């Protein structure tokens, strides 16, 4: 009896249940192993992220999910394994170089620039698109001014999109938690990333804020076609948002597939749903 191939094993494009066409793999992780001294945070994991999809990574606390995002954006360098980005094997790069390749992220613990305003945070997210020389900036002449105005217009589009017009000029340190999370999403979006990594974008939010955030994530994916990989503990959110899900436990991959497939996977039920999680 031949089992139908799960989408995760397909090499190329597929069409989702809601009719969106998902492109070929933009990021492929092959046999990644990451160790911290004796601790094995990631153990021989392979998975891929296709263009245009929302890919979730789930698993109990300490499973190695955040470490996986840190590997993707170059903050950690795995001891073993290959990373293939846009069809090419990626050599070990510094995080800022990877940012310039079009990978942006948000953090599990908000990592905004507290002393800067919402607008400045978002403009900072845009810096991979700004390259005026120092001299032009010093005199605020020609290109410096033009570039600032163009990018300001883009930042304003993101501000409108996220509905944060009223806090544009407020230092982010003064904002409530939920809004800070939103500004952090804005800062990542400002980079116009080809791959957006979200580490628990809804952690610590109330139901209403979670709904807003879910809507923004879906809109980003649909309107801009942005590929998204996200970590989330709330299973109902994951089931709603994700096209495909990777399940991790103790650094190993124990499941990979559509939300429905994952939900029926016995290993996942045992490891994840059996374990209490927040």
């Amino acid at each position, binding site marked *: 009896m031949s089992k139908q191939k799960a989408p995760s094993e397909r090499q190329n494009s597929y069409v989702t249940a809601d009719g969106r066409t998902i492109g070929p793999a933009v990021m492929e992780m092959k046999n990644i192993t990451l160790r911290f001294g004796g601790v094995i945070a990631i153990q021989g994991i392979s998975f891929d992220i296709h263009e245009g999809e929302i890919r979730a990574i789930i698993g109990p606390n300490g499973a190695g999910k955040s470490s996986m995002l840190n590997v993707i954006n170059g903050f950690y360098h795995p001891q073993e394994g290959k990373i293939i980005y846009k069809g090419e094997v990626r050599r070990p790069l*510094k*995080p*800022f170089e990877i940012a310039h390749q079009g990978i*942006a992220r948000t953090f599990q613990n908000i990592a905004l620039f507290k002393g800067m305003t919402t607008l400045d945070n978002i403009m900072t997210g845009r810096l991979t698109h700004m390259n005026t020389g*120092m001299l032009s900036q010093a005199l605020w002449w020609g290109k*410096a001014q033009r570039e600032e105005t163009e990018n300001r217009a883009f930042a304003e589009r993101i501000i409108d999109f996220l509905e944060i017009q009223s806090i544009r000029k407020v230092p982010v340190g003064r904002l409530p938690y939920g809004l800070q999370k939103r500004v952090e999403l804005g800062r990542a979006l400002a*980079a116009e990333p080809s791959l957006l990594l979200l580490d628990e974008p809804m952690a610590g939010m109330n139901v209403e804020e979670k709904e807003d955030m879910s809507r923004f994530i879906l809109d980003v994916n649909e309107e801009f076609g942005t590929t998204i990989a996200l970590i989330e503990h709330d299973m109902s959110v994951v089931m709603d948002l994700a096209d495909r899900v990777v399940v991790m436990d103790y650094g190993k991959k124990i499941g990979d597939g559509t939300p429905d497939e994952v939900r029926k996977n016995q290993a996942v039920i045992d490891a994840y749903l059996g374990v209490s999680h927040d």
Partner: protein
Amino acid sequence: MLYREVGEFKTSYQSDQQTFPITSDRLVVLSLIFIAFFVIPFFITEYMASAIVLPFLIFGIAALGLNILTGYCGQVSLGSGGFMAVGAYSCYKIMTSFPDLNIFFCVILSGLVTGVVGLAFGLPSLRIKGFYLAVSTLAAQFFLVWAFTKFPWFFNFSASGQITANERLMFDIPVSGANVAAPVAYLICLIFFVSLAFIARNLTRGSLGRKWMAIRDMDIAAEIIGVNPLTAKLSAFCISSIYIGISGALLFCLYFGAVEAGDAFGIDKSFLILFMIIIGGLGSIFGSIAGAAFLVAMPVILKNIMVDFLAWPVDLASHFEFLIIGALIVFILIVEPHGFAMLWRIIKEKLRLWPFPH
């Protein structure tokens, strides 16, 4: 006239990005600059220039420079005195090697030399942070002053160990050395001060400034967003040192005329400049200027009150001066840890709404 932004609606991002987005602010600043250039030179006396105005302009430049490094980029430096010495000694070497070079070029070149030196001393910042970095800049301070007193090449083997600014003329007017007329010294310093303040403002409002602030607020997130920490930190060190070098060069050739590194550029200068930006406001151009004005004017005012008005003996007054200024700094920091810049912002926010606070 009321201080208002009501009725001022920004119709383009350009106008919203202006340095002084409110029209009345812009007018005030422009008229101040006009008065500084076209009125004060006719009235300035030797005493005013040497007691307040020149030190304010010169240390204001240094404070702008240190604020770029410490206030905007978050790298604490206690080496400002040493970098001022680099500016002064390079100015001396340049002036003696090129007797015909225009004074403006001499000063700018001295700044550039200091920028390169600052770059070298900024390298440790790529590895160490905070307190440890402060200590390494302290080492730079002592090393630089030591080098300038130890190696006679720096002071052209002069017997006194001092460097002396020789007189040079521009349009037949002395523009360096001991005989510069007050209005001339004032105008030269003013030109540097205004242009450097303008440049500092521009650098800090654009993408470079945001890179610096990102490094200051959270260096790991900054790097993940695409800031190269190497270029961001080193550019801050370099530009900051250019400012401080120019300030040292001006202090040497337009204020003192003759200096010795140990006396003129000791650790007390490093602290003075640091205090200026702390009570003025870290990460604020206005704060750098206000802090410099305060710390330059305060001792003079206190001395005038104590010696001339209360007729205290000079030595007693000078002790009290330290006490009072120390106490004032502590007081200001308790009232508003973010310095004058924040106080000013709060006052402006109140003013904007006055007399209808709701």
